[in-house]
C-alpha cells in the first residue's frame, strides 16, 4: 500500500460551499501525547517514530477502542522543526535496527511514513485507509474529518510528530554554505530568519493602527500561564517558567520586532487523535467532540511576503468560510484558540474570526483586558506554542479537552465550553476545524 497525499477534494477552500455535508457526523474522541524533549537524545525509544507510536497508542487507549477496530490512519509525513539529518552523517544503525524499517533508513527518525507506523504497530491490523496531510496537524485534521465523513474510514487515527536534533535552528545546510542556487538565492540571500515575514506584517500592523510590541506582553504572559497548566507541554514538563512582561520585553531580538519569545521553541513531540463517526463515537470511552466544519485557505502572497492587506483579506475570508460551513457565527465561539507560533500573527487570526466582535487593529487592546481562562473572553486557553513549545497541536488538543470538560487546570471557567475553532498555521494559508460539544 502506498499512501497518497490528500488531494484538493479533501479540503474546503472556497466561500459559498454552504454547510459542510458531514456537519456533526464526525467526532474526535481520543487524545494521545508523547512526552516532549528539547532534542532527540539518540535512543531508539525516543526517536520520532517511537514517540509517534506512543502518542497513537495513548489516543487509542483514551478512546477505549480495540486497535483492530481502527480502519484509517492519517499522517503528517514531515517531522522537522528545521533540523535535518546532515548529509554524510553516519546513520544510527542501533535505532534503525530496533524497528521494522521501510526502504528509507531515516523513516521514523527524520520523517514518518504511514507504512513505517503500520509496520511497527502490528495491532493496527485492519487499517485500510491511509493518507498524508502535509505539514501540520491542522491540515491532517481536515483530511481526517473529511475522510471519516466520506466513509473512507469509520475509525481513524491522525498523528503529527516533530523531531529536533542538535544544532541551531536552520543554521545548517544551505545557510552554512558559500553559495546558493540561483532561484532560492532570489529570496534567501538576504538572510531573513523564519520569523522575519511575520515580524514585517506586525510592523506594518503597528504602524497602521498605532500599536506597539510591548502590547503583546499580556498575551504572552497569559499564553505561558495556560501552557504551564498543560501537562503534555514542554514548558510544563521541563522548565516551568513564567513569561511575565519583564521577561518577555527583556529578551533579545531575532528579527525586530520579533524577539526570542515571539519565536516558539523547537522540541521533540507527538500528538495523536482518534476520530470516528458520530454513531460509533457515542459508545466510546470519552465524550465525543463533534466536527461542525473544516475550512482551508490556500492563498499565496502576490510577491515575496504577504502584505497586511493580503493578510487581513484572507483572515476575514477564512472567518467567513469557517462560520458558513459550520452554520455558526462569531457569537457562538466559547473561546478563541487559533495558532500562535509566531506569536506576532495571533492577532490576525483573532481579528479575522471577529472573536467577541474584535475588528482589525483592536486585538492588542483586547489583550489588555481579561483574556484568562477564568474570564468571559478566554484567548488561547491552550497557551499554544508560546505556552508549550512548537507543535501546532496544542490548540486542537485543548479544544477537544475543553469541550469534553477534561482540560484540567486549564479548563475554562468563565464561559461554558460549547463551540470552538482551532487551526493555522499562517494567517495566509491554513487549515481550521470547528468543534462542538453537541452535534447540532
Amino acid at each position, binding site marked *: 500500500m502506498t499512501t497518497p497525499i490528500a488531494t484538493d477534494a479533501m479540503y474546503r477552500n472556497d466561500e459559498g460551499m454552504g454547510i459542510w455535508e458531514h456537519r456533526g457526523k464526525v467526532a474526535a474522541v481520543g487524545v494521545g501525547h508523547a512526552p516532549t524533549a528539547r532534542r532527540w537524545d539518540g535512543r531508539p525509544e525516543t526517536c520520532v517514530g517511537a514517540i509517534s507510536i506512543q502518542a497513537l497508542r495513548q489516543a487509542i487507549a483514551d478512546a477505549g477502542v480495540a486497535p483492530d477496530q481502527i480502519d484509517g490512519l492519517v499522517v503528517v509525513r514531515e517531522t522537522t522543526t528545521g533540523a535535518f539529518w546532515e548529509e554524510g552523517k553516519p546513520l544510527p544503525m542501533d535505532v534503525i535496527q530496533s524497528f521494522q524499517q521501510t526502504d528509507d533508513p531515516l523513516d521514523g527518525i527524520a520523517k514518518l511514513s504511514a507504512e513505517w507506523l503500520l509496520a511497527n504497530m502490528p495491532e493496527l491490523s485492519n487499517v485500510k485507509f491511509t493518507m498524508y496531510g502535509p505539514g501540520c496537524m491542522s491540515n491532517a485534521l481536515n483530511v481526517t474529518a473529511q475522510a471519516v465523513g466520506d466513509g473512507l474510514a469509520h475509525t481513524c487515527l491522525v498523528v503529527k510528530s516533530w523531531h529536533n536534533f542538535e544544532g541551531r535552528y536552520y543554521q545548517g545546510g544551505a545557510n552554512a554554505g558559500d*553559495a546558493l542556487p540561483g*532561484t532560492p*538565492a532570489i529570496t534567501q540571500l538576504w538572510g531573513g530568519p523564519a520569523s*522575519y515575514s511575520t515580524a514585517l506584517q506586525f510592523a506594518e500592523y503597528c504602524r497602521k493602527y498605532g500599536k506597539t510590541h510591548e502590547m503583546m506582553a499580556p498575551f504572552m504572559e497569559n499564553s505561558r500561564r495556560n501552557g504551564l497548566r498543560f501537562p503534555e507541554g514542554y514548558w510544563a514538563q521541563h522548565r516551568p517558567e513564567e513569561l511575565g512582561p519583564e521577561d518577555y520585553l527583556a529578551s533579545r*531580538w531575532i528579527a525586530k520586532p520579533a524577539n526570542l519569545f515571539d519565536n516558539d521553541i523547537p522540541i521533540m513531540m507527538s500528538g495523536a487523535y482518534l476520530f470516528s463517526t458520530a454513531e460509533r463515537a457515542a459508545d466510546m470511552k470519552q465524550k465525543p467532540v463533534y466536527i461542525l466544519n473544516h475550512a482551508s485557505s490556500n492563498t499565496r502572497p502576490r*510577491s*515575496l511576503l504577504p502584505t497586511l492587506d493580503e493578510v487581513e483579506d484572507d483572515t476575514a475570508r477564512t472567518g467567513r468560510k469557517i462560520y458558513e460551513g459550520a452554520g455558526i457565527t462569531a457569537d457562538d465561539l466559547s473561546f478563541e484558540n487559533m495558532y500562535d507560533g509566531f506569536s506576532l500573527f495571533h492577532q490576525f487570526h483573532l481579528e479575522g474570526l471577529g472573536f467577541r466582535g474584535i475588528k482589525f487593529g483592536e486585538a492588542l487592546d483586547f489583550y489588555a483586558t481579561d483574556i484568562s481562562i477564568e474570564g468571559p473572553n478566554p484567548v488561547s486557553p491552550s497557551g499554544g506554542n508560546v505556552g508549550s513549545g512548537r507543535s501546532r497541536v496544542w490548540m486542537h488538543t485543548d479544544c477537544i479537552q475543553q469541550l469534553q470538560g477534561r482540560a484540567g487546570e486549564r479548563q475554562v471557567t468563565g464561559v461554558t465550553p460549547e463551540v470552538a475553532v482551532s487551526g493555522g498555521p499562517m494567517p495566509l494559508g491554513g487549515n481550521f476545524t470547528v468543534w462542538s460539544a453537541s452535534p447540532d
Partner: protein
Amino acid sequence: MAKQGVVPDSLSQPFWDAANEERLVIQYCLDCDQLQHPPGDTCRGCSKGDELEWKTVSGRGTIYNYGVVHDCPVRLLQQDQPFNLAVIMLEEDPGIQMFSHLPGVPVDDVPVGAAVEVIFEPSANGQLVPEWRVVAD
C-alpha cells in the same frame, strides 16, 4: 555586506545574467499582463509557462517595510548583525517586492516610504546582486 555567492540555475539564469549587466529584470506573463517575482516555471495567475518572459524594469521603487535582523541563519551574514532587511516595492508595480539590506542606511533608522534605486553589488563569488539605495531628494 558579503552575501553568499550565486550559482544561476535554468529558471533564474536571465535574472542573474541581467544583474551582471547591471540591469534589473522581472518575470512577466504576456497572458496576464502581470509581473511575477519571485520567478516560477509557470505564471501564478494563469498557470501557463509559455507566456512568461523577462522584462527590464526601471530600478526605481520605494521602501515598503523593514525589520532588523539580529539572529540570522546565514553564516556569512552573521558578522554583520544587526542589519536592516527591507522590502522594496517596484515603481512599475507596487505588488512586486524585492529584498534589500539598504546599504548606507543606519540600523533601525529606515525611512519607510522613501524612494530608492537599484544598485548592483558583488556577492561572494562575484555574481552581481541587486541592492537598493535611498535616493536623495
